[in-house]
């Protein structure tokens, strides 16, 4: 027997206590992990969705709070197309709209000649032709949710559309979106001649300074700014609010998790004050006594973290099944999220054991035995 096997014995032979403490740690880590994943996924999912449309930059209204709230003249596209370095430009109208009367779905309206149609990965059917109207391409998730396929009719804002294709996008955002010709969406929403923004493709080989010049020229056209996806996300105020809220919730979850872990460890060690007294009375040094307790805390932390990863993934799947979350956000804990959370959790367990262990071993053996 050594310090490690002693710690293992203590855990094995107190199955109920070990289960409760490790479950507490696991639940704390799992909920923190799920919420951190949710927080990170809001920006990532939106960015993935925008990137999949094949644009190098997005142009938005300068004062718009987010991707949805811009209101720019479609005509601006012509002026932008003339600028040096622009290979292609396409206006788009983005909004949530009632589909099949009572279901709100995210809609993208693209001009029939937009390069985004050309890069759209198709699972079935095809994108619209140049002159086609009142047709729709559904993201795979939207098709499944609406039980629609190629050839079916679909009511969007009380107008009848025909499904001509099902797109096989990867991002959760695009999988739950319905894509229609820009003109149709403008008419249905009474926003003729208006777009929420533009997607822009740049000529290959542009230098950084040329890109900066182009951005300045676009800004000079009035009320607009151009930005790559990551910068766009940084400027999205709705996203910023959502991220702030979800980060706050994550911090609350982390704090509560940390407190629950500390409480569980404190209780587990306090109830062993007598044992600590025995160890010291039979000649164990304070250092060895503390080492055995901290080792036990680290073991609990490690097992709890392993459980936490399972719980975190399970919670992510659970959250993803909630329609308004799962339709547009794909979130699973990533390695980048796991590492800091798990490192912090094991460190917390070690530190959480260290303090009560230090306190318990500060007592004289007789005092420790008396307090039990």
């Amino acid at each position, binding site marked *: *027997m*050594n*310090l490690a096997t*002693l710690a293992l*014995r*203590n855990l*094995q*032979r*107190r199955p109920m206590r070990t289960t409760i403490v490790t479950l507490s740690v696991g639940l704390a880590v799992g909920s923190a992990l799920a919420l951190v994943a949710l927080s990170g996924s809001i920006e990532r999912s939106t960015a993935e969705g925008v990137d999949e449309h094949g644009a190098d930059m997005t142009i938005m209204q300068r004062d718009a709070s987010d991707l949805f709230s811009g209101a720019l003249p479609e005509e601006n596209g012509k002026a932008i197309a003339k600028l040096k370095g622009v290979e292609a430009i396409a206006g788009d109208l983005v909004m949530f709209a009632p589909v099949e009367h009572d279901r709100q779905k995210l809609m993208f309206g693209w001009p029939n000649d937009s390069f985004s149609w050309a890069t759209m990965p198709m699972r079935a059917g095809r994108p619209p032709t140049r002159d086609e109207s009142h047709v729709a391409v559904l993201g795979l998730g939207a098709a499944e949710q609406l039980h629609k396929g190629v050839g079916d009719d679909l009511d969007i804002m009380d107008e009848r559309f025909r499904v001509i294709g099902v797109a096989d996008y990867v991002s959760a955002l695009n999988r739950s979106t319905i894509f229609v010709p820009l003109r149709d969406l403008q008419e249905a929403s009474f926003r003729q001649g208006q777009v929420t923004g533009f997607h822009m493709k740049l000529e290959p080989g542009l230098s950084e300074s040329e890109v900066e010049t182009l951005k300045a020229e676009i800004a000079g056209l009035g009320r607009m700014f151009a930005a790559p996806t990551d910068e766009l996300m940084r400027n999205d105020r709705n996203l910023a609010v959502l991220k702030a809220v979800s980060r706050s919730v994550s911090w609350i979850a982390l704090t509560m998790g940390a407190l629950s872990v500390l409480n569980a460890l404190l209780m587990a060690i306090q109830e062993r004050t*007598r*044992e600590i*007294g*025995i*160890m*010291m*009375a*039979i*000649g*164990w*040094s*304070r250092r*060895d006594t503390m080492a055995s307790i901290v080792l036990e805390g680290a073991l609990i932390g490690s097992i709890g973290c392993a459980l936490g990863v399972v719980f975190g993934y399970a919670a992510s799947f659970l959250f993803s099944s909630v329609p308004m979350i799962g339709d547009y956000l794909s979130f699973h804990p990533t390695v980048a999220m796991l590492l800091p959370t798990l490192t912090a959790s094991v460190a917390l367990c070690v530190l959480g054991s260290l303090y009560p262990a230090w306190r318990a071993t500060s007592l*004289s*053996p*007789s*005092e420790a*035995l008396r307090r039990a």
Partner: protein
Amino acid sequence: MGDFNPVTNETASPQPHQGAPLVRLEKVSRTFDDGAVVALRDVDLAIQPGECVGVLGPSGSGKSSLIQIMGGCDVPTAGRVYWRGNAMTSLSSWSRVRGIEIGVVFQDYLLLPTLTAIENVEMALIGRGLSASLRRRRSAELLEQAGLEARMNHLPYALSGGERQRVAIARSIANRPVLLLADEPTGNLDSANARAVADLLFKIQSAEGAALVLVTHDGALAARCSRTVRIMDGAIVDDSGVDPGARPCASTDRLRQEAGARP
């Protein structure tokens, strides 16, 4: 068992002073609750190597406090304690001695509930520079010596009171202490088990040559020791004196004879 030489990884024990008692208490007092409870008052006591001392007194007389202080498990609120002539001023100074040169047996055994009998004995040998196999072998030998060869892998809850106490005794002598302190070791046992445990303690004391301080409220048990110290209300009221070698610990037979001869 003869080749067993425990090595501690702690700082070396204090250098012994030639001719000094193993442990000496000088005007030792111990109070609790800011002086409201006085457990010991101005106690002077010295224990010589190899001595067998019975400390006799009623409940609450301060016997356990005395043994806790002598064993380095507690520190006095006043007075001084010397180990082999060195003043022990703090608990940390005792940590080099406790468990290695001093073995303690408690009334309620104080075994670790999650460890088997052999693991409990092994606990006293961890951190003494012994290999795991040597620790295991030494623990098994000690339990065999205590007559527990068939109970080594049982957890404490599966052992009888007498067996638990024998495990505790095996643990207390694992490092070949020079001083063995036993705090009411038979207090929780029936008479048969009490006799067996007492016999084991005296046998070990005799075989190992360690000093034994046996705290008890049982006069017959105390009478088996070569020296008897009576304690009352925290003060020593009678000490039969130091006479090592002149009167070895009484064997059970002799004790029975003495008891039978009394009117």
